[in-house]
């Protein structure tokens, strides 16, 4: 394959050309309730070419038929010429790399019969269903893939990788009369079959919680001290801050650049944030990004001060900063764009108890059903919450939605515990039509001295059903 790709490269008349080819084997098993909904094996393959003529824009081509490779190399060059760009696009220097990186498959999923995958998932699904008759529905999904990946560019980089990914997710739906609650378990790793064994306890736990939530009151909307558990804190830093640190947002936007000036204070000195694409064994981890740049640990906020940002070769050159290995594409169907890898809030000092000790009335927000950011504004739905009363964890509450302004909220983080952990979850990140990208988030327990918690905001229209 490499010979074929380098031969195709030689046909390009553009000043810069890169080719990616991927072949992905995947299996997916889905249970809904006691019913096996599907068990399928798929094979997806295709290629991507990107070309740049001096003074031209990007010419890009993607295709599923590899017979079209040479024609697409030529076409990408033509497209680049067709879009004059001034000032010209420059790429930051990255030394050429040649690497054969076969990640640890940890039990190659391709060698495991799909019937065994079905049995594994059936057991985890059964763990949720077995909790109570209140569990009226479940959705359990097992998905694995191994991607063989080839990358070459006209500057001499030649990469061949084997990238595994395995994810498990479970949703338990509890119902009593008109009240419906759910619990969500999610596991994801850039590993193989061995890493998803013995996971039933987590599935059981989320189903139990869904049942408990049936009796839990809705949190009273208002402003509280809020403690985020490591899972929600990780989602928060990814969604609310991580996207702003992606340089494609700022590099050609003077106002955005001003807002994200390096050296600006974003938080109190307790706050340290980074993105580490080289951390071993995580879903966002790869040796190189999709432009052939080695991944690394990039500090974004140090002691509350903005110190760095995430770059592609293009944004790095435009801003005169070093490339960070964050140009990623979800597949051959897409160009690489600036993305996060494994984003984290670094561990601080003390324990969870230290964070809640002096809180008279607060909310402990745990897990994440989802989160969305519109730049400075964000909204996160916690899986569940607990009230904190007089320094102790008290009753379970539901419908905990955190909403706020990023700048104010980051600045109100006043205490970060030492109990850092990576959240090895499935799912992924979406940006510019590219979803889901494998990423990981990590954080310890984090306290926000004051945050708006949605929920019952009063007034009619909230209760009831059809």
């Amino acid at each position, binding site marked *: 394959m490499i010979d074929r790709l380098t031969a195709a490269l030689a046909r390009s008349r553009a000043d810069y050309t890169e080719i990616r080819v991927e072949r992905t084997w995947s299996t997916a098993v889905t249970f809904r*309730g006691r*019913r096996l909904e*599907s*068990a*399928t*094996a*798929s*094979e*997806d393959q*295709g290629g991507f070419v990107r070309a740049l003529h001096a003074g031209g*824009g*990007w*010419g*890009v*081509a*993607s*295709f*599923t038929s590899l017979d*079209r490779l040479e024609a*697409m190399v030529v*076409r990408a060059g033509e*497209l680049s010429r*067709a*879009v*004059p*760009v001034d000032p010209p*696009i420059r790429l930051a220097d990255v030394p050429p790399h040649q690497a054969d990186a076969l990640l640890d498959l940890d039990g190659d999923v391709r060698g495991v019969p799909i*019937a065994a995958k*079905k049995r594994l998932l059936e057991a985890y699904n059964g763990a949720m269903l077995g909790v109570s008759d209140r569990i009226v529905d479940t959705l359990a999904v097992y998905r694995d893939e191994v991607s063989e990946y080839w990358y070459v560019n006209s500057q001499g980089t030649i990469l061949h990788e084997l990238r595994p990914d395995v994810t498990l997710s479970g949703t338990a*739906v509890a*119902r009593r009369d*008109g009240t419906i609650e759910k619990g969500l378990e999610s596991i994801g790793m850039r590993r193989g079959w061995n890493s998803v064994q013995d996971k039933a306890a987590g599935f059981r736990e989320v189903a139990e919680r869904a049942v408990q939530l049936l009796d839990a009151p809705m949190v009273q909307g208002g402003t509280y001290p809020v403690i985020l558990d490591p899972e929600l804190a990780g989602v928060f830093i990814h969604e609310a801050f991580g996207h702003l640190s992606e340089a494609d947002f700022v590099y*050609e*936007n003077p*106002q955005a650049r001003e*807002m994200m000036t390096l050296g600006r204070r974003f938080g109190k000195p307790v706050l340290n944030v980074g993105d580490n694409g080289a951390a071993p064994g995580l879903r966002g981890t790869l040796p190189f990004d999709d432009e052939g740049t080695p991944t690394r640990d990039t500090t974004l906020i140090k002691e509350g001060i903005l110190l760095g940002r995430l770059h592609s070769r293009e944004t790095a050159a435009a801003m005169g900063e070093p490339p960070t290995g964050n140009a990623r594409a979800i597949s051959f*169907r897409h160009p690489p764009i600036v993305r996060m890898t494994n984003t984290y809030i670094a561990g601080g000092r003390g324990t969870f108890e230290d964070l809640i000790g002096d809180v008279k009335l607060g909310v402990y927000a745990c897990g994440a059903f*989802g*989160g969305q950011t*519109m730049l*400075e504004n*964000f*909204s*996160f*739905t916690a899986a569940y919450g607990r009230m904190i009363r007089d320094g102790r964890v008290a009753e379970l509450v539901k*419908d905990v*939605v955190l909403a*706020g*302004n990023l700048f104010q909220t980051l600045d109100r983080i006043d205490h970060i515990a030492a109990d850092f952990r990576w959240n090895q979850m499935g799912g992924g990140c979406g940006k510019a039509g590219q979803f889901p990208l494998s990423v990981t988030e990590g954080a310890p327990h984090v306290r926000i001295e004051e945050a*708006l918690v*949605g929920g019952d*905001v*009063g007034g*009619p*229209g*909230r*209760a*009831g*059903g*059809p």
Partner: protein
Amino acid sequence: MIAQLVELARRRADGGADALWRRFERTTAAFEWGRLKSAGTTEEAGANLRVRHRGRVGVAGTTATDVVPDELVGRALASAELGEALELAFPGPPPPSAHLPGVATFFDRAANASLDDLIGIGRSLLTRLEREGCRVNVAVERETTATRVANTAGAGGEYRGTGFGVSADVWRIAGDDVLVVSDALEGADLPSEEALAALVASINTRLDQALRVVAPPEGALPVVFTPAGLSALMLPVTQALSGKAVLQGISPLGAKVGEQVFDARVSLTDDPLRVGRTASRPLDDECVPSRTTCLVERGVVQRFIYDLETAARAKTESTGHGSRGIFGKPVPAYTNIVLNDAGAQPAAPLQLGGGLLGDIRDGLLVDELIGVGQGSVTGGAFSHPVALAYRIERGEIAGRVKDAAVAGNAYELWKRVGGFGNDARWTGSRCAPSVLFEGVSVARR
């Protein structure tokens, strides 16, 4: 390829098979932060096969065009070994007198649009959207598709389609205030100059009105949701009207057919035969001829949407809503959702709120919310911060509000609608006017 695939599957699967083959090619031009940045092309083709063997159903898909049909059939049969036992019946061909419904899906002007045409449209938008202190992104794309479906019962069909999309967003960052106003056009044909002008007017009007920031109101208030802002109220309803949710027992509307559940002025249809929409097609991805489905009529729930599988399990007929990609199995999916079909709208100058603001003393106009789709949507309860919303005072827009959230229960609100606007339009595959609801909870920080 598809005839060969279905024929091979017929020989090896005792309960029949159906297949979809789809190819598309697309051209895009992208302007990033005010300048032309890239041009792209995409060519993709793939096949999806479903078989029923020994009473069980299996699925396989591939984009590897060099794949031997026999191998794909083999994979589908392997999937069926583990698959669910299901009385899945593949529909036969329509009687000779009946034809597939005619709907124009292919438009030469969209198919033949060149890269230079796309760039021209992008530039003209850019020129009209540029303003001091703002940055503009514009993307223009056109595509052609070819679809073939067939089954072992003799049904099948093929059609070509075109699609054309234009999207633009204007960013204004002032200090820590980030304002993004965007809009998009999506259709099967090349957009008219009037449609492009309407997109420009939509963005510029909302941007002009947003420059002034005012304090949000608070309490149970009249709130107008624009056609785009209506998503939070439409999503629970469309989810609940899917036969899949009904089968799972999680649809609050599951036992409500024939009951008055919504305001008597609410009607909802799904229309795959709407000319000029990209979701339109003469038959669905499971060989079922397309027809318009009335979901809610004058507030009364009429029926749910089904594909072949959910119909078989619910012991009813498919409504022609089978949708399948290259990978995975078919699922029930809407085509073009129309709320209160008002027919063609007069090309009146854009008036935010569609004429519903006049009687509002103090309230909110919501154009975009954050986090729609998170949490337990089907139950109807929602609570979202606003991304773009305006305060209404004495019948007029006073300015943009920040740091506000709206909450309510969609089903409660749909029971008594305050009014429908005269501004029905397509946002994606949904056509709806602005809608006024009374007593929506509005909270602020």
